[in-house]
């Protein structure tokens, strides 16, 4: 094929579009997709990544004869903020054995919100461990399920040993205004941390 007429670096670059993403983490069934759906302009979409047997971890391929690959699904949504600015919200796969996918999802992210269900608080340990060990600003959001025990935020902070410099908020993942507030907290926290690290002369974090 002759590409002589193409100018990939030229004409088509005039309207550069920037995209950013915020990650929504948490255990299985904690309401990540509900949260994304409450604010996304599109019905949350699912992207599937194929995992070969080598990456399966605790999956036992012998139990699935003839199946060499399995799929990891991640849900995401989109908010078009301006003609040249799109924000994406990515939910992490719930099952902990898919953590190698989380590394790809958080790469370059603005920050993350880790959702916690107070009825199954121990499910939050593993996701919190993950984010504590990554250089990505994150906040913890308690998803207030109907009928769930209503703990004080500080009780939860203590129970989950959440560091004092990590913002902790309460939310209802079904409600747009509530979700909006969680995302605002994520971005404000990311800005504060960036400002602080800049002041101390640290390099810019990239997730």
């Amino acid at each position, binding site marked *: *094929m002759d590409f002589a007429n193409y100018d*990939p670096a030229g004409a088509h670059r005039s309207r550069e579009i*920037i995209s950013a993403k915020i990650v929504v983490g948490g255990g299985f069934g904690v309401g990540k997709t509900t949260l994304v759906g409450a604010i996304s302009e599109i019905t949350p979409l699912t992207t599937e990544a194929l995992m070969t047997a080598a990456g399966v971890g605790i999956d036992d391929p012998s139990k699935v004869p003839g199946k060499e690959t399995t799929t990891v699904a991640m849900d995401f949504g989109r908010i078009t*903020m301006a003609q040249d600015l799109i924000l*994406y919200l*990515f939910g992490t796969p719930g099952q902990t054995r898919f953590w190698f996918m989380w590394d790809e999802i958080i790469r*370059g992210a603005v920050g993350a919100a880790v959702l916690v269900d107070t009825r199954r608080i121990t499910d939050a340990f593993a996701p919190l461990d993950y984010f504590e060990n990554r250089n990505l600003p994150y906040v913890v959001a308690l998803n207030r399920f109907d009928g769930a025990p209503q703990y004080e935020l500080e009780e939860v902070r203590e129970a989950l040993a959440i560091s004092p410099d990590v913002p902790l908020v309460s939310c209802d993942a079904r409600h747009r205004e509530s979700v909006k507030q969680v*995302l605002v907290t994520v*971005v404000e926290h990311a800005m504060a941390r960036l400002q602080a690290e800049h002041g101390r002369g640290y390099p810019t974090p990239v*997730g």
Partner: protein
Amino acid sequence: MDQRRDPRGALVRPYAVTRGRTEPLQDIALEAVLSSTPTQVAESRFAGHDKYRIATVCEGRAQSLAEIAAYTRMPLGVTRVLVADLVAEGLLTLHTAAPAEGFEERMNLLGRVLSGLREL
């Protein structure tokens, strides 16, 4: 992949459409957006069915790599290989994901995202 929705079903192994290549020509972030012009879409007809579908999805509305994979119902890795090919062939325009370097650029981006959220 939901094979019931894909008319080719299990007859085509996922990486067959990339002729077995699993490494993209360039890494493309999940959230990096791509767009195509009518001319690019027309030219992509000659690049094969799957690439034509991708170029079509991105016409008129920029789509992220993740959206392209979701709308074409192709696995992410396969989509990334094909999208990187299309960019190299000049049939798709790659836009920048969030600039990771530079304090000013990063703060400026975060500030724009923050006001964008508040205006929702």
